[in-house]
């Protein structure tokens, strides 16, 4: 089982190393010293990271930005993505194959290119401002300097393909006859959708949301590219700053733990909900 060995070596050991660094100390050269024995752990960095992450703390603006940006983007993914997936899965008819191919393309177009595309469009002399000026808005905003709307736009734009595909697959798998049965029993189309299609597609909505939310929480490059301003800084940016910026790997590691705790809360909701859905399907 060399594969399992590889994963143990490069997934589990590094995860423990992050713990050890986060609970470690610095030596006299201010280099982080990991503490391997949990009994010797120094809670200093972790408590600093946690208290900084609570409202009023040093990292709270980043946490708040992260939560706000991710939830707004997720809402947009739902509002745009679900109708698209629904249409392609259930009503597209002859154009379905073409539409699926078109849905898959953005999935495999490099994320960085898709950001690059928006940087070109949103830059001060770009086409977006050109259109706004043509519409009579003489003083268009600077999109690329700490503008939260640009960051939300970019996050939604970047991750929505990861939402649409699983939701599409889920909707496509729904047995047409179940909806027809609801209609035969007198349900209006709207009620059939509300009481049959929507509940049946909920597991895939949950899966799609998880696929979108997980990477968004760790994202730092979208923000760097679209704003590069501390005003819109997210949790991922803080971690990146502490770890790659160099000096405070221990604080970065502690913030990684904060990130994982936030995600663990979300994931447990997801797991409980999917287990409930699975039971409901069996019942």
């Amino acid at each position, binding site marked *: *089982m*060399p*594969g*399992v060995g590889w*994963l*143990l070596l*490069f*997934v*589990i050991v*590094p995860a423990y*190393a*992050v713990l050890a660094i986060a609970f470690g100390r610095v030596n006299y050269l201010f280099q*982080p010293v990991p503490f391997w024995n949990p009994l010797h752990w120094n809670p200093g960095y972790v408590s600093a990271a946690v208290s900084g992450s609570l409202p009023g703390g040093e990292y709270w603006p980043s946490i708040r930005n992260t939560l706000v940006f991710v939830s707004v983007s997720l809402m947009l993914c739902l509002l745009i993505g679900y109708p698209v997936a629904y*249409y*392609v899965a259930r*009503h597209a*008819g002859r154009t379905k194959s073409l*539409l699926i191919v078109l849905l*898959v*393309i953005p999935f*495999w*177009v*490099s*994320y*960085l290119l*898709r*950001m*690059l*595309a*928006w*940087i*070109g*469009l949103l830059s001060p*002399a*770009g*086409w977006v401002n050109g259109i706004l000026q043509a519409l009579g808005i003489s003083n268009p905003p600077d999109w*690329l300097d700490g503008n939260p709307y640009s960051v939300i736009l970019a996050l939604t*734009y970047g991750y*929505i393909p990861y939402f649409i*595909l699983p939701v*599409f*697959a889920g909707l*496509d798998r729904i047995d047409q006859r179940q*909806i*027809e049965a609801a209609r035969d029993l*007198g349900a209006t189309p709207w009620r059939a*959708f509300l009481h049959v299609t929507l509940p049946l597609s909920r*597991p895939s909505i949950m*899966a799609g949301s998880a696929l979108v939310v*997980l990477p968004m929480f*760790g*994202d730092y*490059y979208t923000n760097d590219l679209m704003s590069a301003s501390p005003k819109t800084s997210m949790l*991922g940016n803080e971690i990146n700053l502490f*770890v790659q910026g160099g000096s405070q790997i221990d604080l*970065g590691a502690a913030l*990684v733990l904060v*990130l*994982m705790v936030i*995600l663990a809360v979300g994931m447990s909701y997801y797991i409980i909900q999917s287990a409930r859905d699975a039971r409901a399907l069996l019942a």
Partner: protein
Amino acid sequence: MTVTDFQPSPAAAPPSQRQAPRRGGIFAWLRNPWGQPRFLVGVTWLYLAWALVPVAIAILFSFNNGKSRSVWQGFSIRWWWGNPTQSVFHDPSYTSALMHSLLLAGLDMAIATPLGVLLALGLARWRGRGSGAANSLMLIPLVTPEIVMAVSLFVVFTQLAVLPFTLIKLGTTAQVVGQVTFSLSYVVVIIRSRLASIGTQYEEAARDLGASPIQAVRLVLVPLLMPAILSSTLIVFALSIDDFVVTQYMSSNSSTTTIPMYLYSNARGGTSTPALNALATILVAVTLIGIVLAYLLYTVLGKRTATTEGGLMALTELSGMEG
């Protein structure tokens, strides 16, 4: 509702018939906005335009005649080939990023694919203690944000003075290790779904006919898995060449810059020319070619082309997105 009220509703008919008749205007639409899905058609095509047009524009700007990446100044191929020092195939920083991306992708394919195939075979056979843990271990890289893995590998390679981590320095080796670690899971997912659809009967037949376990795998199972193996190789290629976070954390200096890293560090600078867009276009073209090949191999060699439906499902499966 009693039986006498029952009206055969139009929606009970097959979908093709349901959409055909168009009855009276806005009221019918309000009564049944989902039945005649013009709203949905609109949303879908608007979404697709929103998703694809910016990319097309970015590609178009690689043919810009001026130095700007946002103001159109006429068509030329100077940033692709014409300019002898600054075009994408002449400027050494572009070509080195391109070569390094290809090198990493090659190494990642060569290591992650065989390792992933072995892991998938092992996990499929492994019953009992530890198999559950190994399964969840395999899924960890898929469900943690990339930055978590990148930070933890970074910590290990820079702070941990224990074998074997001391042998791995930031740079190409660490980049390959990082990329293999996350691509492994994708290989396992693809191979296992194929293994499940093959079933165990062929292998058992081979064993009944006197093949040793190793022979059964080598002579029967591996040829049956070949389409999935080849297409997962290409998926690994696409994952590797598109990867940014892990590759960036594991890099050491400018000689280990890949295309996505180069795009990241130059996208905001005023100095970069449309050659940057050309570089991004190359990246996308290479990825899409890999994916199309993977798709063709998976469907044609896998004899799954009975219906386009099956093929298209394979496409979504390949995208690693099966719920």
